[in-house]
């Protein structure tokens, strides 16, 4: 385990930034933290987490896939793919690190999404253990240990010191790059913080929420559950939950006519939108109830069914705090699953 003084982090960022782009959570003018490209002097936020999840780094909201150039009546197809550059993301929380597993299973299984794969390959994740979880946190429900997040490197932040431990070869290489700026450390302080955090985690309001009732094979049990009607009745049909969600991975492919050609790009889509997966005959999800059900059935039943029991929710709590009408997966799990946490 390596450590450095919190006050020395600027040097660490500078050292890494000499060869890779560095991103870290920085407090914005609006009071929220957001992953921001590091520049000299930018301060690592103390916020628990960002509003936008770090999935943007691998699966950005919009991304050009290919282009067509038109000249009169001729069309030329342009391959605009290029290899991603190396980058490091600092401060990814345990829940969000876990979300990359969820995304990987979608984008890295055959056929591999080359855009995603390239970014994943070139990105180094420095996770950050939690010490002050919020009431909206429930990563424990999905078996995630907030005090020991995965990632290429795990970091723990105390009052004045940052501890690092490499988990992968990529991580080890990163620590190697900054070896001169860090020193060897015992894990006592980390252990103490973990202990303390665990007692807090146990006291969280959602600490006892479980996934017992859910998982693959539960489609029949839940699909026609009468509670969907009531749960979805206030849903506005906006895309906030899906867009702040670290595991939502649906996208639409669209074309933009630039006047001189066409750009084919993809952008996040939301199963909450009435236009989602609309086909020539219309839409098979007729009302917000069906759209709402789709989202939660996907997270809690369909996805685990296809992915060895892995749920596509990591308990980050973003939808709990950001839904305009405060309807969220916890309320759904408790109502449908009969789980009173």
């Amino acid at each position, binding site marked *: 385990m390596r450590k450095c003084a919190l006050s020395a982090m600027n040097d660490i960022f500078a050292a890494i930034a000499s060869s890779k782009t560095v991103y870290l959570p920085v407090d914005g003018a609006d009071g929220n933290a957001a992953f921001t490209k590091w520049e000299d002097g930018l301060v690592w936020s103390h916020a628990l987490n960002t509003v936008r999840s770090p999935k943007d780094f691998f699966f950005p909201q919009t991304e050009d896939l290919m282009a067509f150039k038109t000249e*009169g*009546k001729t069309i030329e197809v342009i391959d605009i793919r290029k290899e991603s550059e190396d980058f490091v993301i600092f401060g990814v929380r345990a829940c969000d690190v876990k979300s990359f597993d969820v995304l990987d299973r979608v984008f890295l299984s055959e056929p591999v999404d080359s855009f995603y794969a390239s970014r994943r390959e070139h990105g180094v994740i420095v996770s950050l253990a939690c010490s002050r979880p919020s009431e909206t946190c429930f990563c424990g429900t999905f078996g995630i240990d907030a005090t020991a997040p995965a990632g290429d490197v795990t970091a723990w932040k105390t009052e004045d010191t940052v501890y690092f431990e490499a988990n992968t070869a990529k991580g080890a290489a990163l620590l190697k790059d900054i070896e001169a700026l860090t020193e060897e450390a015992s894990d006592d302080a980390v252990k103490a913080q973990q202990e303390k955090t665990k007692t807090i985690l146990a006291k969280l309001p959602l600490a006892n929420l479980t996934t017992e009732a859910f998982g693959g094979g539960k489609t029949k049990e839940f699909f026609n559950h009468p509670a969907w009607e009531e749960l979805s009745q206030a849903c506005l049909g906006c895309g906030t939950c899906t867009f702040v969600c670290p595991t939502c991975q649906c996208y639409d492919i669209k074309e933009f006519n630039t*006047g*001189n050609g066409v750009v084919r790009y993809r952008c996040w889509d939301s199963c909450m939108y009435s236009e989602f997966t609309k086909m020539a005959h*219309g*839409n098979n999800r*007729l009302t917000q109830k069906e759209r709402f059900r789709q989202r939660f059935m996907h997270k809690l039943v369909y996805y685990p069914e296809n992915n060895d029991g892995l749920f596509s929710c990591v308990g980050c709590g973003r939808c709990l705090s950001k839904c305009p009408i405060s309807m969220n997966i916890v309320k759904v799990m408790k109502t449908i699953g009969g789980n009173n946490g």
Partner: protein
Amino acid sequence: MQRIGVFVCWCGSNIAGTVDVKAVAEALSHEPGVVFSTDYQYMCSQAGQDMIKASVAEHHLTGIVVCSCSPRMHEATFRKTATAAGLNPYMVEIANIREQCSWVHKDMPIGTEKAIILGKAAVAKVHLNAPLTPGESPVTKRALVIGGGIAGIQTALDIADAGFKVDIVEKKPTIGGKMAQLDKTFPTLDCAACILTPKMVDVAQHENVRIFSYSEVSEVKGFVGNFDVTIKKHARFVKEDLCTGCGACVDKCPMKKVPNEFNLGMDNRPAIYIPFAQAVPKVATIDPAHCNMLKNGKCGLCARVCTAGAIDYTQQDEYVQEKYGAIVVATGFNPISMDKFDEFAYNQSKDVITSLEFERLTNAAGPTAGKLLRPSDGAHPHTLVFVQCVGSRCTACAEKGKEYCSKICCMYTAKHAMLVRDKYPDVDVYVFYIDVRTPGKNFDEFYRRAVEEYGVKYIKGTVGKVVPENGVLKVQASDLLNNKQLHIDADMVVLAAAIEPDRSARPLATMLTASMDTNDFFTEAHPKLRPVESPTAGVFLSGACQGPKDIPETVSQAGAAASKVIGLLAKDKLMGNPCVASSNEAMCNGCSSCANVCPYGAITYEDKEFRMPDRTVALRRVAKVNPAVCQGCGCCTVACPSGAMDLNGFKNDQILAEVDAICK
């Protein structure tokens, strides 16, 4: 995908001098969808048009772009060419490369480049053009004239003479309007009744004219060529078809103290009355507010004396429904109320009267049998003061009067002054004026006669106050030319009250969806070029409802309105302009924004059942555009938040395509 032909015109050297037309044709030939592109010296010539026609056939064109002069010049020409070639005329777009390109740019490369871009925009638009067909609607060959004054009478007569049926609706028991109350008319001083009453008789006897007197329009539905109108006939308690107008009932009626509105309250009439001797229809009317029989069930004298048995105390208001192809508004004017003009003591002294009251006072059929007598005591007056512009041109006192000039007062005041001096040379007559306005044939001559031959004392200045004192009206005034204050002891003061549109006009305008200005005068479709048409198709304007007018002007406008109506009714079918708005009901919210901005009242709403995306059926309020009424301005399309409203020929996507092509 369209198959587009591009035709670039040289216009001799007009275009070709600054634009390389061959380069334009060549450049546009590479645009997607263009299957044929050529240039020619004069595209509008017969040979040029023949070339277009041949090309349509040869290349199976579905759309045509002509790069030529302004569409204002030859759009119609090329649309006809397209029709002749078997294409829909609206599949033609013009790129204006003459007026807006070759003529304003001097440099050949620059002009050529711009011409190509304008051509591309036209090509982009034609891609999205769709064939348009003008809607057809039948025309009901009957006109409605609302108002039976000289304007309405003249309009009705002219329409009727052309062979069309006309109905006149008049809210008073008789037609005739204001003109029937006048004494003499300027500038010829012929008697109003002598020229009006024969027309009243003519119109009443005309086989094509029906008169609904004592009636009002209560509902208007429909649109140009197809109005459905409900007319409310007030109960007059006298059977119109039986009454002979003998007047026996009028003589016998015991209730004789009803203020006579025809004489503006200066004398009385019975509860059953005929407004004046030449009234049309000459039928008695019972005033239910004063008739003892109707109020208390006691009396019944009139029924007893009526040998024709025309009296019917049980008569009810009656509603008549009729269809019309055109509606003429001729609701006329009234003098404004003098209540707010305390300075002239109108409400304090009977000897302060309005000019219209003065008309009755000098009229042989009036309350004094035409003798000039002071209303308060019937004495012969010696000094008369006329005050002009009372409530007119009132820029500083908008809450009291009107900002506009009432136009007729200068002339009738000159007339009044002259009449007084002619009959009673012993009477001193003063006229206070701001300006004397006499822009009419023989008008200024008339005014000068009043001053020069009749010795009327015209004083430029204003009357500040009129104070009734010991049977005399103390008039305080200023003489602006001599810069002095004047004090005149007058026996009578005559106020040239401003005129305003009749009160019935505003609700009528709402029913007709015809627009009005802030003074409640009806607005014309165009102030210069369409002065007798309302912006609402099929509604026409006659007389003072559109603005202050004297009799000759009213009569000429009445004739003009009639000719417009005749032009409309002469058609069997109305062919609409197909470039009108239409609403995509699936997207319409029914919010009324579009109807709020429509200047023509072309948009109505209906509740319609829709299959919703979730397969339920819902009743939704949606906009409907009447293509026969819409004029195609497109205002509604921008007011519509959902984009449900679009305009044929200038659709959103067409304009966006033009923008895109230009900004490429």
